[in-house]
């Protein structure tokens, strides 16, 4: 029976980011509890009390310490452990972000807790609460049971509806004194470069590892040129290879876009990539692997080799233009 849940709020990493916890995390907790009365407490580590904003649908524990000025796994791990001692939760919910995947496994290991990462759905089977996540290269889904409590669960950002509902809960403030002997000189660099071409594009033709050779990017560019207000984009690996600039990267660590049409060329469809394009209008995937995960997230699926398919598509388009 799960009736006590603790949510760790996302640390503020960039100046533009809001301080409140993602309402999607609260909605995730509601799904976990179902009909069971449940106490949800959002834990907010911050460096000054004015940083904290109460949220709907949960009580709040504000933890104040100068160590929380910048995110570090050491500070957030300690905050989680102190809060867990106080709240005694069945489940500790942490957003699966760059911060979350850094410290959540540490918290689980130190509490000898169960740990389930990047959960995208909650299901119930014979009174058991099951946590769904993607596995096997995104080709199959896995349903996990907590097995024991407490359990640390990291939740995929954007996987749960973000409407804020419910009343503001109580707010409690505690002061901590955390020592940070192993980590120092934390500096943030905002390297995010805006890319209006990609962010405002109606049509995005995106390429992944499956394009094979850098020269094949020309095919992707030619396909994009068929559409007005279009842009090319790339999955992480193409940017890592230096084939495409990072400002064209789509995914959790790149841009989140929602064009009218998204064509995924040779993209396998990792959850990190899906998070960046799942709100697109129409999604077309071209991949030679019929089992590629991207096909589960596509309206139109084409099992083909790109080197053959794109030229064929260019030819079809040219034929129609002549008419």
């Amino acid at each position, binding site marked *: 029976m799960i009736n006590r849940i603790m949510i760790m709020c996302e640390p503020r990493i960039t100046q533009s980011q809001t301080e409140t916890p993602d309402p999607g995390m609260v909605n995730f907790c509601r799904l976990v509890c179902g009909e069971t009365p449940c106490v949800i407490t959002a834990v907010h580590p911050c460096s000054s009390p004015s940083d904290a904003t109460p949220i709907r649908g949960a009580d709040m524990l504000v933890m104040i310490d100068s160590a929380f000025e910048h995110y570090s796994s050491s500070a957030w791990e300690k905050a989680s452990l102190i809060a867990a001692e106080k709240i005694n939760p069945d489940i500790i919910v942490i957003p699966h972000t760059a911060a979350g995947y850094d410290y959540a496994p540490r918290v689980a290991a130190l509490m000898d807790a169960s740990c389930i990462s990047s959960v995208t759905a909650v299901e119930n089977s014979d009174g058991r609460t099951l946590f769904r996540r993607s596995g096997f290269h995104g080709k199959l889904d896995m349903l996990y049971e907590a097995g024991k409590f407490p359990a640390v669960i990291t939740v995929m950002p954007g996987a749960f509806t973000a409407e804020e509902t419910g009343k503001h809960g109580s707010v409690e403030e505690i002061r901590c004194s955390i020592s940070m002997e192993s980590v120092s000189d934390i500096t943030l660099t905002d390297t995010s470069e805006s890319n209006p071409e990609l962010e405002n594009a109606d049509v995005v033709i995106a390429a992944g590892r499956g394009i094979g050779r850098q020269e094949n990017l020309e095919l992707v560019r030619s396909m994009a040129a068929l559409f007005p207000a279009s842009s090319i984009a790339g999955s992480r690996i193409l940017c890592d290879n230096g084939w495409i600039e990072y400002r064209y990267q789509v995914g959790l660590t790149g841009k989140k876009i929602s064009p009218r049409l998204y064509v995924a060329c040779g993209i396998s469809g990792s959850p990190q990539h899906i998070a960046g394009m799942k709100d697109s209008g129409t*999604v*077309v995937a071209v991949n030679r692997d019929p089992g590629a995960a991207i096909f589960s997230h596509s309206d139109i699926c084409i099992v083909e080799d790109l080197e053959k*398919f794109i030229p064929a598509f260019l030819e079809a388009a040219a034929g129609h233009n002549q008419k």
Partner: protein
Amino acid sequence: MRILVCIKQIADAESRPIITGNGSWAEYGNKTAYRLNRFDEHAIEEALLLKNADPGTEVDILSIGPERVKTAVRRGIEMGADRGVHINLEEKGYTSPLLKAGLIATYCKSAKYDLIITGVMSEDMMSGQTGPMIAALLGYPSAAGIIGLALNRSKYSISVRRELDGASACSMTIKLPALVTVQSGINRPRYPSLSNVMRAKTAVIEEIDQREKTTPALCENVHSVIETKQQRAGLVLCGTTTEKAEALWQMLHKKSLI
């Protein structure tokens, strides 16, 4: 300076997992090609770059799993690592990352490394838990998903750059001993040199047998493995390449997209 690189061998991305045991797990067939997890290839490269800068550095490669993972360990030696360690563990169904992290941490307590490097996650399971768990169990600081690493020898610390959401980053100094998990953008893994390939052929991989001893602790478990949910229409186009291309054009035209 002693560095340990923890690696995982995975089934190739194009292999098809088959749901087995009434939906309780999934397995790969006999003909499946296994290879080194790409993120771990970057982890090995990062360790070798430190070794290149200071030849006194020792780099060990460790993997946990059945007999076949020795091939991945040997691949690490082919790239230029000094020694290999294999924790032999039969994996039937789900194995908790905390169980593996515990076995690795136990090994590390006696072997004493200054720095432990691993990939940010495995390409197949994508949990990213094992690395930070090893660090926590050893009481080491850690940073996950780093895209830059520099050693400050005189201060016995490392400076790392971590990737954050939305293309921002942060840098920090971490005291050694520590653990980092690396993102793929950090370096370009090298190809093995012929001399290292020859050396790897005869290299002895230390084996730690855990096949009998490990009783799984009570932890999270996999209730079932199921097909992914089709999130969108998923209409599969049929016919020749030309027919599919024409069909796509028609469909996009109907939606006024082209």
